[in-house]
């Protein structure tokens, strides 16, 4: 028997009849179906709402979108930061468990040891999923940062700073050394005491192949350039949220120029 039940934005269609929802906003948010509908929603809806179908649909859609937007804007950066921290913890745990597993295996390969190994593999699979989720949220809330340095590094910057809002307020020179605070302050205190010091060229962003991949003497230049674009990207992401492909392109060009140029 075919199960003929469909969730429509204005109610549920079942056994040839529509049960109109009492709360349209709620039914709108639950209008999910695993497969395409064999009819057009609007035809069925016009039977109920008549000429006012689109007016009604539009009103509910706008109300619903407004609520969602408000909620999402508040939560998403905190969500991604919490995910990044969970990922760190998970990595630590996996390493630790791997070590214990190795110890166990050397002593005896029992059923429980194999079980243990299976559980660790499960965790590793889950780690992959967690990383994917971080990437997808970052694309959404920070498309420009993600395009320039990749979702992972962008998420790490966000985690270090605490929120997209704060990141958008930082000058490029600070973004350049996020994650290298210790060596920065060490250098600064040496300078204060009148001694020679090495100021760090890069922090978190060093992980990016465009910096790591260059010879040492060019890394500072690249890091400075990248940080200046990241500062702009963070502001666009925070205030506008739309992707400007030019930024990432400029960074790539700079890298290509630096990696070609022998000086």
């Amino acid at each position, binding site marked *: 028997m075919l199960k003929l039940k469909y969730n429509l*934005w204005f109610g549920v269609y079942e056994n040839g009849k529509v049960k109109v929802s009492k709360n349209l906003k709620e039914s709108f948010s639950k209008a999910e179906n695993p497969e395409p509908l064999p009819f057009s*929603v609007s035809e069925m809806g016009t039977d109920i709402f008549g000429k006012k179908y*689109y*007016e009604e649909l539009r009103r509910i859609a706008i109300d619903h979108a407004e609520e*969602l*937007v408000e909620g*999402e*804007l508040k939560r998403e950066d905190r969500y991604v930061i919490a995910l990044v921290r969970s990922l760190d913890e998970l990595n630590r745990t996996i390493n630790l468990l791997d070590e214990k597993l190795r110890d166990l295996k050397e002593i005896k390969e029992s059923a429980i040891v194999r079980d243990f190994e299976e559980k660790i593999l499960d965790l590793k699979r889950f780690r992959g999923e967690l990383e994917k989720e971080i990437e997808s949220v970052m694309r959404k*809330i920070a498309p420009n940062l993600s395009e320039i340095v990749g979702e992972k590094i962008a998420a790490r910057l966000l985690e270090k700073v605490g929120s997209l809002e704060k990141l958008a307020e930082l000058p490029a020179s600070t973004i350049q050394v996020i994650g290298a605070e210790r060596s920065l302050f060490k250098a600064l205190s040496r300078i204060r005491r009148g001694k020679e010091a090495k100021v760090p060229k890069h922090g978190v962003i060093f992980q990016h192949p465009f910096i790591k991949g260059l010879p040492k003497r060019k890394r500072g230049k690249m890091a400075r350039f990248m940080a200046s674009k990241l500062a702009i990207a963070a502001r666009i992401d925070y205030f506008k949220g739309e992707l400007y*492909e030019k930024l990432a392109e400029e960074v790539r060009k700079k890298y290509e120029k630096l990696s070609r140029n022998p000086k």
Partner: protein
Amino acid sequence: MKNFREILNNVFLDEERKRILTKSPYPPHYGERKIDGYREWIPTRSKLAAVLLKGYRIDLKPNTKMLYLGAASGTTVSHISDILTKGIIYAIEYSAKPFVKFLKLARERKNIIPILADASQPQKYSGIVEKVDFIYQDIAQRNQIEIFRENFRFFAKDKALGLIFVKARSIDSTRDPEEIYKDVINELKRDFEILSYDDLSPYHKDHIFVYVRWRK
């Protein structure tokens, strides 16, 4: 205006100044100029404007029903809304931030239904969007063709039209764009008839559009 030629419902080509405009009773949406009831349609901001300015004709009628994937802040949708005077646009966008501005547009125009959802999951809005004549996609994701096809499966009328924009670098940043485009066309050919395609230069770099008709 005398020297404007109408190339589509409410879309006018100003041959002298090489620009297109849509006739619109509404105020500017993204900083475009408004001249005597016409809004200038800027090809570097809107890919559809680039397609039209390059001389390609896309079949949009006043009563076309459209599903638009990747509405962003509504630059292009605002002009399509001027064209589809008796039609309807279901506009899907995943990101909340640009949607704030989009909602301003949706409140102003009667023919836009805004939906904040992930275009790769059409089942999530399957009880909202009706069967449509046209599916437009501008989302720059690696699996965007699969997403395009899934949305056709869910929402396209027989022989529905589609317009998809592909950015080579968002599919694979290491391969030659020309090769990627070839693959894209071949992949689309499985389910679609290809009506036209071209790059968007000089208005947009590294992009192509493909205009198709669903085989079913």
